[in-house]
């Protein structure tokens, strides 16, 4: 299951949702809004998505994970809109028979999401500066989980 959400991510429910009798391991990754990047202080991140393509790419990642690891279930959810420091911007929950597979599958899913899913964040700093984060382009990336 994949989705974009404008509401807070209920990661406890997502974690429960992937649990299976045949899965002895569950790994849940949460990306949360960090307060400091270097010496720049973030007060909020504004997430924008290209929704149909973002959900399509997330569904591809889910399919890749299912093809590569014997997962019980896998869930990817990403927030949209404005998030304050500490809020959960992304959650990936994976269940698998053993922990090595669960960790590897979860790691792969979040890494791929950050590479290919058309979602962007704008860093809102405490000095009033607003800056879109476009990795590889100056100014350097800032803000959320990295």
């Amino acid at each position: 299951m994949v989705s974009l959400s404008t509401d807070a991510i209920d990661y406890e429910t997502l974690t429960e949702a992937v649990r299976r009798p045949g899965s002895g391991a569950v790994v849940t990754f949460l990306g949360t809004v960090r307060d400091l990047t270097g010496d720049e202080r973030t007060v909020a991140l504004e997430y924008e998505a290209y929704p149909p393509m973002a959900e399509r790419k997330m569904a591809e990642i889910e399919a890749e994970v299912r093809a590569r690891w014997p997962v019980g279930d896998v869930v990817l959810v990403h927030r949209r809109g404005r998030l304050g420091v500490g809020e959960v911007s992304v959650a990936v929950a994976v269940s698998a028979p053993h922990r090595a597979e669960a960790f590897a599958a979860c790691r792969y899913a979040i890494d791929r999401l950050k590479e290919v899913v058309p979602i962007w964040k704008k860093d809102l700093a405490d000095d009033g500066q607003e800056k879109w984060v476009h990795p590889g382009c100056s100014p350097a990336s800032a803000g959320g989980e990295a």
Partner: protein
Amino acid sequence: MPQIAIRLFAHLRERAGGPAITIEVPDTATVATVRQCLARLWPDAVGLLEKSAVAVNEEYAAADRTIRPGDDVALIPPVSGG
């Protein structure tokens, strides 16, 4: 010349002042043609444009991909989800 609308996001959307831009392209336009048109339009954003991908019908497209009438075209600057 045919016109195509291009969806814009993040910095490029704000740079253009709206969620899409319409440009005129030759009949045989490709993804590369679209990139050239935008680079001429926004010389100050060439660095970001060079690092941006183009999606056609919600899938990343190669430079030689032909744009046909009715295609959904989007400019995808480097992503920063997570």
